[in-house]
């Protein structure tokens, strides 16, 4: 049995508010928690496979060119070496998210420095790693453009409305700033890994991937296999943040080696390889223009950005994504352009677009507030558009004003126009800043099977992944709420392409998409149970393993009997959002200390208030927001990919020199979750929250730096040298 919904209309029934189990939204601990804390959750490279060989990718120090010869003989003679693969089906780049087809092949056509071109397979990891370093690969090298500022860019997107230049000229107050952000790495803690096994007909790969149904298609297409010959398993993924959306080079290489050698092969990227070959977030060069009347009401809004990618890649960091709808302003110019350069593939890194776009707008808004003499929170409140400022669509739901107000109250925001350098504690200037948050919403087709088992427990199955987001918890809660079961009585199985295809994790789509699939499956089961009782399912109350209706009550196992009852829920996005602007919103408040001598900045506390539809689990949702706010700190202060100007290689390709925040960088953080129901977003009225927490917060920190010490810094990350260079004397 299955239930299919293509959601063409908002679902205002709010079914999950009428069910009685009381687990939806509850801050329940993750069901897999103890597996993770005892080291018994198994990640891709950790499966035991008899006779498993170890593969190590061989990369070449050439920015563009082609492999002309590989001297296999020398390394084949090394102890333990079994094979050297340079199969043309090896992939040179990772697949973009939801590509569903093979990424760039052959790997031996080199497009960026450090591209993998071959795989050395040996009995042991040490043998393979050494042999991979010693393999002599000859390459024909070519020059390639490396500097995004030095090439002509292609226009990717453009919106013009009214006359921005005129609005700027006429404005009572205006701001025109240019801001740069540098590249970011996902830097998930688990390096990309695959363990492939081939039985002569079917391929089984344990891998670390976010979106299995797409990944299976990508892998099959790369290898020339049918999809049903490929099984992928990723029940635990050690972080993704976009870098595991598409199938990456080690998966295809491991599969090819296993197929050629007839033995299991494991390939794990080194940390340096992870930095050098998986997707980066593009650096950006942005210009923001704001024109306002004397009361600070926007009359013009401009946001232009240049990003980069390799030739042939369709992805362009969508910097303007939320700029289209965040603030008012009749005269608008939004332009995005892409420079084609030879760095590793640019793709999705947590919150692509907003993670670097919103903070820039928020810096400009802070400057406008100062010019107009208006409190920054008030300035934002004055500029929330009634409807989408470009296409006139109504907002499906928007808690932005409440987030601003409640966040300000919780933080203790002092309502006043800003004047920097008001507080000093010893060597440290103290200041506060704020920013709005916005992240557009989307959902993806998803299926899930829910089985009521004799005895009154349930099983939820989908190939959906849990990359740390809380999928195991929330899918169990949706099912528990709908079926009247305690989460302990629900087993959730994920991360296996043998199971019904879910959405995958990425772009904050997972909870709303797969949650809806589970919801639909449970609606089907509820109808079946009602049928057995000869009643309407609206008359059915399921709670604590009991079935109640106006005419009586029965224990669920009694009603189920000896046979399991299952239903596949099939959710598909439809036209429900066609006439609406759908997005999650929030607000950030930050207090920083800036050292007057050294320009070092420390965030002292942060508050975030977020509205993202229905909260499915207040604990895991809060953790997502905390994670996002931690990323804000890295984005604002420490993270940047440094590319060599001469040969284009990534210089800081490890975790010592690419500075993700450490524990001491993260202060007390407060998170407010504002309950909201978005009927258009999904049948469970939920939107996404996985990325919202880092969409704008770096701007709050930047604004706080200015409030503290008077430095307006227009380059992220705001390292001590940059803060010092912008800091007024004294």
């Amino acid at each position, binding site marked *: 049995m299955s239930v299919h919904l293509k959601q063409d209309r908002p679902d205002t029934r709010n079914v999950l508010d009428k069910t009685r189990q009381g687990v939806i939204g509850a801050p329940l601990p993750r069901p897999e928690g103890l597996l993770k804390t005892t080291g018994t959750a198994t990640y891709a490279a950790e499966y035991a496979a008899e006779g498993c060989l170890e593969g190590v990718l061989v990369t070449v120090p050439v920015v563009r060119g082609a492999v002309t010869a590989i001297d296999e003989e020398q390394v084949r003679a090394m102890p333990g070496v079994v094979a050297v693969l340079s199969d043309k089906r090896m992939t040179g780049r990772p697949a973009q998210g939801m590509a569903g087809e093979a990424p760039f092949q052959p790997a031996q056509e080199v497009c960026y420095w450090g591209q993998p071109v071959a795989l050395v397979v040996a009995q042991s990891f040490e043998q393979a790693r050494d042999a991979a370093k010693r393999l002599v690969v000859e390459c024909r090298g070519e020059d390639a453009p490396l500097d995004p500022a030095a090439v002509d860019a292609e226009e990717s997107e453009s919106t013009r409305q009214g006359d921005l230049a005129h609005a700027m000229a006429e404005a009572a107050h205006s701001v025109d700033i240019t801001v740069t952000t540098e590249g970011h790495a996902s830097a998930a803690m688990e390096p990309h890994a695959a363990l492939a096994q081939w039985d002569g007909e079917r391929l089984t790969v344990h891998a670390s991937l976010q979106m299995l149904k797409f990944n299976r298609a990508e892998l099959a297409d790369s290898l020339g296999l049918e999809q049903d010959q490929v099984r992928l398993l990723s029940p635990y993924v050690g972080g993704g943040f976009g870098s595991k959306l598409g199938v990456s080079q080690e998966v295809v290489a491991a599969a090819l080696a296993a197929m050629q050698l007839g033995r299991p092969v494991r390939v794990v990227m080194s940390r340096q390889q992870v930095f050098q070959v998986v997707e980066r977030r593009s650096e950006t060069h942005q210009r923001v223009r704001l024109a306002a009347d004397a009361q600070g009401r926007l009359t013009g809004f401009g946001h232009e950005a240049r990003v980069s990618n390799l030739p042939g890649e369709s992805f362009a960091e969508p910097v303007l994504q939320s700029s289209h709808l965040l603030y008012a302003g009749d005269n608008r110019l939004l332009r995005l352009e892409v420079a084609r350069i030879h760095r590793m593939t640019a793709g999705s890194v947590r919150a692509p677009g907003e993670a670097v776009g919103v903070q820039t707008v928020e810096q400009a808004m802070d400057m406008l507030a100062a010019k107009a003499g208006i409190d920054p929170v008030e300035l934002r409140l004055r500029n929330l558009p009634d409807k989408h400022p470009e296409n006139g669509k109504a907002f499906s739901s928007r808690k932005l004003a409440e987030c601003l107000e409640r966040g300000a109250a919780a933080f203790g925001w002092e309502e006043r126009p800003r004047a920097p350098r008001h507080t000093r504690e010893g060597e440290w200037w103290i200041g506060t800043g704020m920013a709005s948050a916005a992240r557009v919403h989307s959902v993806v087709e998803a299926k899930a099977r829910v089985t009521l088992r004799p005895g009154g427990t349930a099983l939820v199955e989908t190939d959906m992944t849990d990359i740390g987001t809380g999928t195991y918890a929330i899918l169990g809660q949706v099912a528990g709420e709908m079926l009247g079961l305690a989460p302990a009585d629900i087993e959730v199985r994920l991360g296996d392409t043998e199971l019904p295809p879910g959405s995958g994790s990425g772009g904050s789509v997972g909870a709303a998409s797969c949650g809806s699939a589970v919801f639909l499956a449970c609606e089907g089961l509820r109808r079946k149970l009602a049928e057995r009782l000869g009643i309407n399912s609206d008359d059915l109350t399921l709670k604590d393993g009991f079935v109640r209706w106006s005419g009586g009550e029965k224990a669920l196992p009694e009603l189920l009997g000896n046979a399991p009852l299952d239903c596949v829920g099939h959710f598909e996005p439809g036209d429900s959002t066609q006439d609406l602007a759908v997005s999650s919103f929030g607000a950030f408040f930050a207090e920083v200390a800036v050292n007057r001598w050294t320009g070092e900045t420390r965030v002292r506390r942060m508050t975030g208030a977020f509205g993202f539809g229905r909260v499915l689990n207040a604990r895991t949702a809060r953790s997502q927001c905390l994670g996002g706010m931690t990323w804000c700190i890295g984005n604002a202060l420490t993270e940047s990919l440094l590319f060599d100007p001469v040969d284009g290689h990534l210089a800081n390709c490890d975790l010592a020199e690419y500075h993700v925040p450490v524990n001491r*960088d993260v202060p007390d953080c407060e998170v407010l979750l504002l309950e909201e129901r978005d009927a258009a977003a999904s049948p469970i009225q939920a939107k996404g929250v996985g990325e919202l927490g880092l969409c704008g917060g770096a701007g709050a920190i930047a604004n706080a730096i200015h409030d503290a010490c008077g430095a307006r810094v227009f380059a992220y990350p705001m390292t001590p040298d940059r803060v*010092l260079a912008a800091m007024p004397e004294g």
Partner: protein
Amino acid sequence: MRPFDYQRAERLEHASQLAADADTLPLAGGTNLVDLMKLEVETPQTLVDISRLPLRSIAEEGAGLRIGALVTNTATAADPRVRADYPVLARAILAGASQQLRNRATTGGNLCQRTRCYYFTNIDQPCNKREPGSGCGAIEGIARIHAVLGTSPHCIATYPGDMAVALAALDARVEIARENGSSRSVPVRDFHRLPGDTPERDNVLEPGEIITAVTLPAPVGGTQLYRKVRERSSYAFALCSVAALVALEDNRFTRADLAFGGLAHKPWHDPRIAELLVGSEPSLALFDRAADLLLEGAQGYGENDFKIPLARRTLAAVLCEASGVGA
């Protein structure tokens, strides 16, 4: 990692004899050497494991302290005598790395820590330190973390450690055993070298020589500070650091022993700074003149130009804190 022959030294002499071979390296805590071996930056044919030699004690020696070469960074920083009499040393150690690394890193090994230069640690890049004659990728490349003092056209790498900066300020000495059984002692200030035209040599150790201890002179009291400027609040190398032993009487400096990290191929110590400061009244103008001396020959390489003003300001911050100026 290249294959190697693993030998454990049971006695110091044994270790010295083995280490005399140019293709042999001594292994102590391993926190730097194993890292570099995995990258094939270091490719010894033989590793001599010296980690179990009896060089693990901290003992009073004369009026000072003798810290065995195999004493871990953790043990040094936690030692009550170090904390009481040489707090700058404890502070510097604690400002470096992580607890896990400090638990294994040793006194001798930390002195021999090699540079964090991106070009040195990437064997697909030119580096005169790793491969003499191959060129320096950093000079025209990403030089953010590199040196501004004492550089050469062949190398602009920095010495990355913190502990040695404090030892330089303290004027500690390095005790070295030689292959022939004798020993010698070198001031920490002279232990590390400038790159010149032989950047492959980080320090003055000769083949067969093994560090056995660091000796600290008698405690001098005063104010002892270690200030490290870094890009995150912990677990990051210094953009610039200052170790300071400062004393004042009647509002005049009676001691101002300073050493600097993150600026050069070695912990930087310039005796002229103490000469200028001692006897003078603390003032911002004086600190500026001290910085003029420090940075007299400073040369930036574009991306690291900021280190020159940063060093000036960090020096001023430390002297202000020590003297109370500007408080």
